[in-house]
């Protein structure tokens, strides 16, 4: 298959942000996740847990609560005191409303989905009416002494439980007055702590209120009498989150020790009608605080400071023990944070608030498989570019020639010109960006670096011609009438004639750049697109989907290629379909048109279309080099998928030239080393 020199890069110092909230939507089977940097991500659990949308964060907007309302509407609230609604189509913030109660700590949507309740720093609980296009303040509930950290509606919508510091209040929604005040014991293992913070409450339909608090307790209260019914001491540290299943027969809590406990309503004896809550299963998938949990009908979902999103299927709810029953741990974003200039061997790394430009090293030595070659020049950190303003970077790109860098935040678009003089580089910002170029979801340069393609969040695609130090707007492809879906992925053909773009659900559109018109639309597929690329010479569009299917579509012929039809007919190898991270990048070999290079977080693969396809009986991944095998056997067992799992977790991989690859790895240990230390637990002794 070939020998490559691989630039193995581990200096991309990327740390994902910790997870603050998760909210599960049963109707669409989607999960909203907010992180400590204010980013909100939407995962489609039906589409192989693909992260299909994201809303960039903002320095001042720390999200403390996240919830779904009727009609797939997503709200968040945070410490800046604002309630935000997100536009899931245009992928931007619809509006922000100040609640005027200081920082907001908690939020809950009424069971009917028409009212929104927020708990504020000043002890007020505010009720908002959700109107079709906005939210409307309705009234305040009785003000409490201290901040409201948690809220839960009774399923009938008549009462609300609110967790504060040292006590839980039960409100009557009609009158807005507190019906009961349930004091929580401050004592913690015999020692009186200063305060007991109620991190979470859940109101069940039988009137039981479940509370979790900073003293490590899970308590059951009778809301009718305001009395404590049952107490479980489950941790030596805070219990920080709780989520109840829709059937109210099980719930899940997360602790600061990284443990997630599953509680279930279980019959006291077999076939008796009397049931009680029993702590059934502990899970230790986290090392740090579990700040947020969610309960889908079939799985427990948890996330926290250690930045992993863990989806743990409940085995008894899983009908068939297939690959869906496996534990999922999502750590890295399902989009590209790295771009590469092949000509100058540069890598551009995207962080939340800055960009880094690195030049790869070089070597003159050669070696055989597995050798590490001596460096004649080490990699250089050329540039550290900080953003202006509090907004996070959405996307960035470096041109193939290495002389342009573009990036975008929610409100501004930046374009820089780089000049290289020997070892010095100078940076020059291209000023006076046009008004329409305010925010981009995806940026792409053409192969000759003469054109810039920008996907804006209103669904339009801008084509800009780049000149030395200036630019010219050529054309804007408007979205098809009636659709406002934003395009998240772009691909341009090496000859510069074709541009492909894809949104989250509709098909892939292919535009003719020469004639500036829509050429064709690839039929839409059930699963979202995770990566796109157009092959040189043939202009075949290769599309990877979140269900691990890969299609090849001939743009000139406007139809799927013969190879694509063959592999669809035969089906992919079962191990290929069982991979749990999406393909995030596709590239091609300039000299070998039959090869497609693609990678996900745990492998990279070269598909050789000239070789026979593997069936389920053949070995898909064979890490060992063939030894003592005659050429005949080797030829017989060879198949189209050449897989390497040497580099992982793999965030980026591309072909620099015919014989050189670049691989960017981000070892998990390096991330863990930079997280705050977890709560120390004794391992030995008592």
């Amino acid at each position, binding site marked *: *298959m*070939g*020998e*490559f*020199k*691989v*630039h*193995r*890069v*581990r*200096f991309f110092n990327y740390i994902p942000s910790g997870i603050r909230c998760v909210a599960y939507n049963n109707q669409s089977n989607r999960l909203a996740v907010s992180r400590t940097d204010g980013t909100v991500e939407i995962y489609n659990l039906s589409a192989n847990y693909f992260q299909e949308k994201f809303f960039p964060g903002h320095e001042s907007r720390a999200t403390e609560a996240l919830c779904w309302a009727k009609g797939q509407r997503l709200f968040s609230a945070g410490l800046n005191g604002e309630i935000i609604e997100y536009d899931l189509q245009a992928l931007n913030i619809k509006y922000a409303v100040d609640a005027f109660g200081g920082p907001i700590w908690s939020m809950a949507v009424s069971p009917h989905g028409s009212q929104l309740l927020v708990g504020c720093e000043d002890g007020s609980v505010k009720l908002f009416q959700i109107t079709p296009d906005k939210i409307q303040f309705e009234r305040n509930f009785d003000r409490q002494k201290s901040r409201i950290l948690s809220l839960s509606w009774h399923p009938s919508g008549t009462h609300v439980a609110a967790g504060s510091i040292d006590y839980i209040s039960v409100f009557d929604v009609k009158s807005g007055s507190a019906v009961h005040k349930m004091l929580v014991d401050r004592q913690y293992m015999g020692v009186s702590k200063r305060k007991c913070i109620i991190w979470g409450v859940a109101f069940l339909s039988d009137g039981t209120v479940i509370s979790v608090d900073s003293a490590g307790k899970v308590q059951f209260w009778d809301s009718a009498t305001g009395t404590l019914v049952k107490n479980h001491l489950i941790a030596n540290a805070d219990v920080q989150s709780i989520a109840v299943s829709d*059937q109210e*027969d099980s719930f899940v809590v997360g602790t600061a020790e990284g443990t997630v406990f599953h509680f*279930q309503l*279980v*019959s006291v*004896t*077999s*076939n*008796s*009608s009397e049931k009680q809550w*029993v702590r*059934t*299963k502990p899970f230790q998938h986290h090392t740090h605080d579990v700040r947020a949990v969610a309960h889908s009908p079939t799985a427990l979902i948890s996330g926290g400071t250690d930045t992993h999103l863990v989806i743990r299927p409940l*085995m*008894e709810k899983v*009908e068939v023990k297939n690959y869906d029953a496996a534990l999922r741990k999502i750590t890295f974003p399902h989009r590209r944070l790295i771009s590469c200039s092949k000509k100058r061997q540069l890598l551009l790394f995207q962080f939340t608030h800055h960009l880094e430009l690195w030049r790869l*090293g*070089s*070597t003159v030595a*050669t*070696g*055989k*498989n*597995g*050798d*590490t*070659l001596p*460096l004649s020049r*080490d*990699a250089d950190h050329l540039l550290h570019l900080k953003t202006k303003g509090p907004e996070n970077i959405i996307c960035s790109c470096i041109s193939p020639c290495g002389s342009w860098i573009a990036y975008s935040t929610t409100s501004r678009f930046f374009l820089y010109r780089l000049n290289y003089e020997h070892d010095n580089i100078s940076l020059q910002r291209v000023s006076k960006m046009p008004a329409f170029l305010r925010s981009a979801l995806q940026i792409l340069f053409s192969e000759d670096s003469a054109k810039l393609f920008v996907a804006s969040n209103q669904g339009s695609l801008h084509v800009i011609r780049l000149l030395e130090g200036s630019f010219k707007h050529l054309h804007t492809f408007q979205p098809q009438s009636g659709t406002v879906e934003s395009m998240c992925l772009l691909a341009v053909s090496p000859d510069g004639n074709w541009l492909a773009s894809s949104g989250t659900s509709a098909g892939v559109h292919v535009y003719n750049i020469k004639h500036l018109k829509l050429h064709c639309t690839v039929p839409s597929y059930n699963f979202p697109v995770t990566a796109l690329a157009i092959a040189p010479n043939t202009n075949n569009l290769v599309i990877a989907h979140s269900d691990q299917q890969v299609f090849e579509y001939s743009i000139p012929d406007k139809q799927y290629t013969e190879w694509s039809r063959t592999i669809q007919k035969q089906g992919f190898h079962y191990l290929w379909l069982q991979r749990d991270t999406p393909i995030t990048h596709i590239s091609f070999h300039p000299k070998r048109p039959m090869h497609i290079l693609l990678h996900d977080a745990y492998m990279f693969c*070269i598909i050789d279309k000239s070789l026979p396809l593997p069936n389920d009986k053949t070995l898909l991944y*064979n890490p060992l*080099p*063939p030894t003592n095998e005659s050429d005949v056997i080797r030829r017989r067992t060879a198949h189209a998928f*050449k897989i*390497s799992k*040497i580099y992982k977790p793999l965030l980026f991989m591309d072909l620099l030239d015919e014989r050189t*690859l670049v691989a960017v790895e981000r070892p998990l*240990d*390096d991330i863990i080393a930079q997280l705050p230390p977890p709560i120390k637990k004794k391992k030995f002794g008592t």
Partner: protein
Amino acid sequence: MAALEEGFTLSAVPLGAGPHGLLGVEQSDKADQFLVTDGGRTVILYKVSDQKPLGSWSVKQGQIITCPAVCNFQTGEYIVVHDNKVLRIWSNEDVNLDKVFKATLSAEIYRIHSIQGAEPLVLFKEGAVRGLEALLAEPQQKIETVISDEEVIKWTKIFMVFKHTVLIFITEKHGNYFAYIQKFNSHTLSKYTLLLGQEEKSVIQSFSASVDRNFISLMSLSSDGCVYETLVPIHPRDPEKDQRVVRSLLLKTVVSGDARNGVALTVLDQDHVAVLGPLLPSSKECVSIWNTKFQTLQASKELPQGTSGQLWYYGENLFVLHGKFLTVIPYKCEVSSLAGALGKLKHSQDPGTQTVPHFVNWETSRGHRFGSQNSEQSKRILRRRKPEVSVQNPASKQLLSAIKKDSEKHIEEELCKFLAIKPTPDFNTIIGDIVSELLGRHKAEPSFYPRNSLMQLIQTHVLSHSLCPGLMEAALEKADVQMLQLCLQQFPDIPESVTCACLKIFLSDSVQEEKMEEQTEVLHNGFNAEEENCGNCDRELNKKPQDAAEETTSCPVIPKRAALLNAILHSAYSEMFLLPHLKDIPAQHVTLFLQYLYFLYLKCSENATMTLPGLHPPTLNQIMDWICLLLDANFTVVVMIPEAKRLLLSLYKFVKSQVCICSELNKIEVSFRELQKLNQEKNNRELYSIEVLELF
């Protein structure tokens, strides 16, 4: 804990019960359906869960039913006796009792007994017993008198003991009680006199009985309010002679002593009895559950409207006449296991043999009757429960019948056929039945020892010691070490006494004497890592170990014995129960076992991971635990034996050196951690490299 649940009334219409209450409540051939015979003329078939009658039959005016109706389980027909001598047999479809089959007998009937799996038996008032079919063939046949004049039958019950019916009846004559045991397979009748002991004057008011292996445990409730137990042997040593049995006090004053009537007793299970009657002299009558083992009252339920002093118990329900209504009180007794409480249950098993699921499914333990909210889930439960309808599949029946008479070879073939069938949910109980059947026959004819079949059954992984308590006993008797090894590997609940008995056999010389041809097979299951070491251990075993060097290099036992001992090391136990049994092991065997354990310990310590090679090696903890246990139990003895003393000394030295190493390691632990950190940093520094990759 046993518990009585909320009862419910079976019939809203008051039964025409006479002063003596009901004649009886009997099971019908369908679960949940019961035949209730009132004291007058009516028989009613009830479905208990629906609380409604399914059918009702009456005899003509002027006739009177004299014996409770029963169901013939073989044909599904019902049988009743009216006017003492007239038998009526009918089925569900019949409407009028006058028009159904009728047979008039020559003698008066006391009771008809019917039990699952056997033909109904008719007990005459004079003590004679006849099978129903024989009787119907010749209704007017002469019926002999068995009991003497003035002797009156007081109570009777039927049992199935090893597929044979055994009938017991109690008679009374002038305040003396006699028990008759009629075994139907051998047509033997044995008579016992019940000696009442000091409580000579008391009158027995109620009887109940259960079978406990070779005895019928007869419980009687006397007029002094105490429950007595009498063990009546089923197989008498000398059937001809009149024998006596004594009764012993089981529970004291369970009902108030002056209660004259309305007192009854029934055995619920091995440890529980239900008693009907007032607890205190002035209190109302009530049903109470007593635990006979711990002499405790488990539950009681007051019956304020009075009872007739009759109590029936079937399956999970107690039947009581409460006032004028027949009341059903569901009774539950949770099985609690000491093994579970003491943590004796095995946890680790190799993945290959694991049959239990990896996770506990809390959903399935939820109420079967109550269903669950989730429709999808209940559907699944239904699907899962469906196969249980065919409780006894024909293959197992055929196999069970084969076991009774066929040769070992044939049984093996039948077993293979049976095991080839896809297992049903009640697979383990069927397997249990098969094993007990095999053992039953082995007991009856000691030459019959179906070793291969038993081995095959053990390897189904569903057996446990509690399911077939006789199996290991039999294997111990036969000194069948291979079978014992298999049992030790498979059963999670072997009592410590049995484990110890196995250990004794394994250490005894009999293991050595056995032929070597079996050895290879054992080796597959066990520990074969020291094969090269143990090649010529045989000879060395009898020699005294010459020096420490030799001890450390060679295994003191042959590989076969090592495999057997490893099975012991793997078995679960509780120290408290094991220690007394360990004391009984002879001193030289203790020494040998210690030598072997010491050898294992040395082997273990040879590598860094402190593990032994092989498929299922004993862990270091297991080895250490057994060394400690053995020394705890036999220290005084071992110290006195010179060669053992030398062994102890070297063991002591070695342990001490190990402890030394550990404490030194503890001291430099921090330095190790720093080293590790340095090592990591070195790796981290390689943030960039150019490597060569060749794809094949």
